[in-house]
């Protein structure tokens, strides 16, 4: 495919869409689908055909619009956003096309939730039909790939990504350019590119949303990476729990193959690249790259010591590049607009934007993308719209089971890799859960430890036995049956796990405990000394569940 042919596809799609004088977009990503948006879409289509308006009005299923708490969401044209739409609203919405919007459904868009966001990864979410490659191409899709193949050397691609300052969005924040350069220099007969879409963090749904809303963006990122590092085979390791994402990825791969954007000698270049899906089967540890590789090879997902790093010896012993969904999704805009453009967004050490899944006790739960360096206060009180049900802010949890809980004093801290780590949490993949005074922090710590214990693969003893004992002590505290000695032992075990576990899961498992011990020590003491739980979650002696 030449740049001209690509433009031609976009042009005919533009003409196709221009036939319609009205476009009604219905969110068909998981959040809205769970509140029956597909029924709304069907109702709208039925109403359009009843009015014989098929030639004039198109009903388009699009990706996530962000404000998941108020779904199903529908937009009309560029202006009106409707929330909580029901099937019965279809006639009213179609009536409004000629006149004024339906005021009872209108959702204001001039609020911080929309104004404070900066969309790079999510630029097409809520705009394009995720099941039409032509729509993606119309919005600039695959132009970065075609440009890379026709104008740039692999070295130049790596340089551009390095210049952008992009860091791994899976959580650890390893510089992406450096990773690509290592794999490109590694010697091997065959190289692999793996997209880690095993979003195991409870409370995180960024990757799911990107895959459901704009799957081609991820494929394009992988293709550019394959060209840069010299890989010929790609795998997307996606959770089996995300059937909709899997379905859309399968469609996207077929469409890309049909246009010969995947396959042999892509766009007449020497790049040959094939992509297959591998379904995860519910194991948090498979987010760890060596465990993920084991799982793609069809084995139990058990990590191994590094080095050798996957960049040298990865899948089937060959050099392998592993990046997260959001990392790959950032690549095409970087190539299109230049690394320097990306690097001017964000803070000195954390460049670009980050997608967060905002959930918990805030009014506006959903998916947001903000420049790095946005403060927690802006996230919670402006974008999030403040606490729900008038409750009092207590903590914000980032990084899932590997992260920490940060109290009020950190609200003005900028959200970037360094600041979060300094405060005892991590960026993680982007889950951000806001907790109010009805949450007991000891109970939250127990919840996460319970998670780590059942997700521990059991290979190394510090993690296997350590998580068990930490959970036992935390359980004791929430039942008001623990002593001061138990608290000391909890701290000791936390240090042990952090220093001696084999992989990231074990090393970071104590984080929720350590951060709550540090910032909510009085709550632990109240449980141990006065047998009192201020939040009323832990009942004396017989905690439910």
């Amino acid at each position, binding site marked *: 495919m030449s740049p001209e042919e690509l433009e031609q596809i976009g042009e005919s799609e533009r003409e196709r869409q221009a036939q319609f004088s009205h476009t009604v977009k219905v969110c068909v990503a998981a959040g809205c689908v*769970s509140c029956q948006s597909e029924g709304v879409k069907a109702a709208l289509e039925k109403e359009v055909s009843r009015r014989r308006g098929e030639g004039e009005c198109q009903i388009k299923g699009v990706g996530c619009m962000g404000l998941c708490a108020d779904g199903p969401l529908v937009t009309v044209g560029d202006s009106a956003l409707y929330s909580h739409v029901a099937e019965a609203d279809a006639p009213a919405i179609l009536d409004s096309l000629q006149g004024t919007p339906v005021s009872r459904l209108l959702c204001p868009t001039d609020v911080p939730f929309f104004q404070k966001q900066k969309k790079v990864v999510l630029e097409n979410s809520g705009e394009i039909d995720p099941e039409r490659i032509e729509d993606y191409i119309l919005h600039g899709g695959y132009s970065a790939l075609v440009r890379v193949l026709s104008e740039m050397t692999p070295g130049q691609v790596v340089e551009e990504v390095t210049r952008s300052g992009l860091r791994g969005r899976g959580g650890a924040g390893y510089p992406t350019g450096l990773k690509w350069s290592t794999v490109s220099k590694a010697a091997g007969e065959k190289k692999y590119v793996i997209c880690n879409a095993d979003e195991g963090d409870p409370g995180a749904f960024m990757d799911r949303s990107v895959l459901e809303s704009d799957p081609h963006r991820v494929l394009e990122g992988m293709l550019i990476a394959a060209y840069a590092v010299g890989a010929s085979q790609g795998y997307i390791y996606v959770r*089996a729990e995300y059937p909709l994402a899997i379905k859309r990825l399968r469609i996207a791969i077929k469409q890309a193959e049909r246009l010969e954007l995947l396959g042999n000698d892509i766009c007449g270049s020497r790049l040959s690249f094939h992509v297959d899906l591998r379904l995860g089967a519910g194991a948090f540890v498979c987010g760890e790259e060596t465990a993920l590789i084991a799982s793609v090879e069809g084995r139990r997902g058990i990590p191994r010591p590094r080095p050798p790093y996957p960049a040298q010896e990865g899948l089937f012993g060959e050099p392998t590049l592993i990046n997260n969904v959001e990392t790959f999704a950032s690549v095409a805009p970087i190539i299109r607009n230049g690394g320097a453009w990306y690097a001017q967004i964000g803070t000195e050490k954390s460049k670009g934007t980050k997608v967060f899944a905002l959930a918990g006790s805030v009014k506006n739960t959903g998916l947001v993308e903000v420049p790095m360096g946005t403060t927690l206060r802006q996230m919670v009180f402006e974008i999030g719209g403040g606490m729900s049900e008038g409750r009092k802010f207590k903590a914000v949890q980032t990084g899932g089971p590997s992260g920490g809980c940060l109290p009020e004093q950190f609200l003005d801290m900028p959200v970037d890799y360094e600041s979060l780590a300094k405060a005892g949490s991590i960026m993680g993949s982007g889950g951000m859960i806001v907790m109010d005074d009805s949450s007991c922090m000891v109970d*939250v710590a127990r*919840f996460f430890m319970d998670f780590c214990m059942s997700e521990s693969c059991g290979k190394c003893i510090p993690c296997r036995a350590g998580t068990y004992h930490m959970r036992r002590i935390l359980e004791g505290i929430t039942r008001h049956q623990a002593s001061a000695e138990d608290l000391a032992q909890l701290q000791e075990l936390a240090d042990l796990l952090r220093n001696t576990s084999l992989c990231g899961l074990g090393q970071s498992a104590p984080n929720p405990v350590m951060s709550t011990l540090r910032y909510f020590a009085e709550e632990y003491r109240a449980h141990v000394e006065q047998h009192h739980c201020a939040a009323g979650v832990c009942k004396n002696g017989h905690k439910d569940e």
Partner: protein
Amino acid sequence: MRRMGNQPRGLIETLHTVQETFGYLDLDALRYVAASLRVPLSRAYGVATFYHFFTLKPPGEHTCVICIGTACYIKGAPQLLNAVKQEFGVAPGQTTVDGKISVLGARCLGSCGLAPAVVYDREVAGKVTPEALRKRLSGWKSHVS
């Protein structure tokens, strides 16, 4: 299996297909898969038990997956679990004695904006209350099929 070239590396994919078709993995299926892919039965069993997604027990007529991810946990998933336990006497991973309802716990369904979330058979429901859950499950129990 043939699609994967009858190779050991296709083990997880194959188990997915088997479970999708039969609803669970029984010992016969595991034996057959292991023999066909030329892996020891211990490895097939090891993989099947390692991953939470695979189940070795037949599911009930209906399944109810309660999300116990972080957002759902702080928004009331424990109360949902309690309600199911009290009303029907089952905890996650168990099936009611009459084989009608299997209750499962999930580590985040990614519907955190709608916490707490529950999947009834294949349909996701958000902002579920213990009353709504009880009502839905009682409907399943009384329904004669």
